[in-house]
């Protein structure tokens, strides 16, 4: 069977590349020198979609609710092997809460006829909520934290969810459905510089509120019931004793601490 798959992705500051620091007035994080990338979970979702289509036929469409610079991550996913991509951007979308983002994505999903909708299980800067909300809005079954997908006869999937202790919960789920993808489900393919170059000049179509049929009052700041008030760094007790000095001095201090604990005789 052909699988028409929609994958929802997001541009986030890459935690491996950045120290996240609160801005001086606490209204945001310092964004001046941030390195952005595709949210890690989303990248696994795109890889899973591509593998499913490679095996069963169909196509992969990638969408992102983001600012005008989010087209770069769509192009990256096109370089990875997605067939089409749309950026969902409109002034009315800015400062949407999770519910607003899910509503925008739901309108995008209704434009096509998708068998499967994938999101990352969570994002670095968000709340692990959009996939479940999107599924409920579209009235399709949903499962979160998915680490295995097998296509079965009769328009259904057999999936494994990762639950506590690394145990797997096996479910059967009818298509069409939505799944949130957990990291480790696959090994996302490497996108080389040649692949990036190939899609560098692709114009990513931008869809706004009017094209999607989104009522601006229901999304963005206007529709948000949940708002971020500020950013701060919590006080968490004393914290660690941070060793000082040269590398050698720190190593010797640490050895002394470990000896004190009887680790080293």
């Amino acid at each position, binding site marked *: 069977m052909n699988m028409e798959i929609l994958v929802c992705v997001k541009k986030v*500051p890459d*935690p*491996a590349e950045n*120290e*996240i*620091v609160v801005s001086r007035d606490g209204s945001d*994080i310092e964004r001046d020198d941030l390195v952005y990338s595709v949210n890690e979970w989303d990248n696994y979702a795109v890889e899973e979609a591509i593998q499913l289509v490679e095996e069963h036929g169909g196509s992969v469409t990638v969408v992102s609710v983001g600012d005008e610079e989010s087209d770069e991550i769509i192009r990256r996913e096109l370089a990875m092997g997605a067939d089409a991509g749309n950026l969902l951007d409109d002034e009315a979308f800015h400062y949407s809460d*999770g*519910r607003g983002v899910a509503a925008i994505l739901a309108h995008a999903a209704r434009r096509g006829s998708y068998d499967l909708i994938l999101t990352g*299980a969570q994002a*670095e*800067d968000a709340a692990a*909520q*959009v*996939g*479940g*909300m999107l*599924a*409920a809005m579209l009235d399709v*079954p*949903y*499962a*979160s*934290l998915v680490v295995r997908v097998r296509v079965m006869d009769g328009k259904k999937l*057999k999936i*494994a*969810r*990762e*639950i*506590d*202790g*690394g*145990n*797997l*919960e*096996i*479910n*059967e*789920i009818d298509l069409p459905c939505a799944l949130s993808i957990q*990291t480790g489900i696959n090994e996302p393919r490497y996108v080389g510089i040649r692949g990036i170059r190939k899609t560098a000049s692709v114009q990513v179509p931008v869809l706004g509120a009017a094209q999607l049929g989104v009522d601006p009052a229901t999304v963005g700041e206007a529709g948000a*019931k*949940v708002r971020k*008030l500020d*950013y*701060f*760094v*919590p006080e*968490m007790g004393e914290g*660690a*004793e*941070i060793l000082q000095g040269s*590398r050698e001095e*720190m*190593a010797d201090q*640490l*050895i002394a*601490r*470990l000896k004190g*604990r009887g680790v*080293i005789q």
Partner: protein
Amino acid sequence: MVHQVFIYVAHRDGQAADSALELLSAARILSPDGPVTAIVTGWGEGLDRVCQEMASRCPEVWKLAHQDLAYPNAEAVRKCLVEVLPSEAVLLLAHDTLGMDLGPGLSVKLNSSFVSDVVAMTAPRDGALTLVREEYGGQVSTHVSCDISGGAVLSIRSGAFPALEDGAPGEVQDRSSEIGDLACGRRFLEIVEAEAGDVDITKEEILVSAGRGIEDEDNIEIAEELAKALGGVVSCSRPIVDAKWLEKARQVGTSGKTVKPKIYLALGISGSFQHLGGLKGNPFIVAVNKNSKAPIFQVADVGVVDDLLEFVPLLTERINSQR
């Protein structure tokens, strides 16, 4: 206005999860004098035991028994809750693998607000609640305002609120007759237990744990050499297993193993709550990380802010040369 406050009780083998009493103490912030209702869904004898257990601490317990709820399939639980919850209810549930499955979609169907992974909150004022969440793996926190005038679903982080110790006992009400058709497009089949590995990290006293900061598969050897020098074994955080550099049985965290070593060396591990959730027994924690803002330094006893790829080989060499 006064909202009716509910908690959803996760349970297994006839016992309420530890989260239940934490949810009760979080619920008290929302409803200092008002009643709190515990909702327990399930089937059979185990369900009754959990209801009785909750009734010893909570003024009102709603028992919702149905064969399709024997295993907590989030899709079926959601249908059930949508039918029994009054409008504008505020529902607290645990931010665990069931809560993540259930909460977001439930809030849509109830047409109420949703905030996940809450670590703190203050009493509501003028129909709005102020909550605290973390972002970027705990590097920063945010205050979030949530309009609860139309009700809310809030998922609560494990361990963020103390377990309620002085709850007054109450009654179990069987509300099962309110449950309608629970047939849904997702069916639970079975649980597959995690495979055992070649070492059992849950029994080790010294763990040298590798995280994302180890950067490359070949560098796992750096952790192994240190573990050898200290007489411990290598464990790891999730990204290392995702990259298939070590087997799943070596992973410390809520989605991996719960360990209780005496000494824990965290090499290039940022210290997300999912990772720390697997670390019990108050070990002596040494953190090596080049990011001085990494949350692991908040919980570690000793910290080294340095590139582990440089520091750890030097440390190992100096330990070995002192023998």
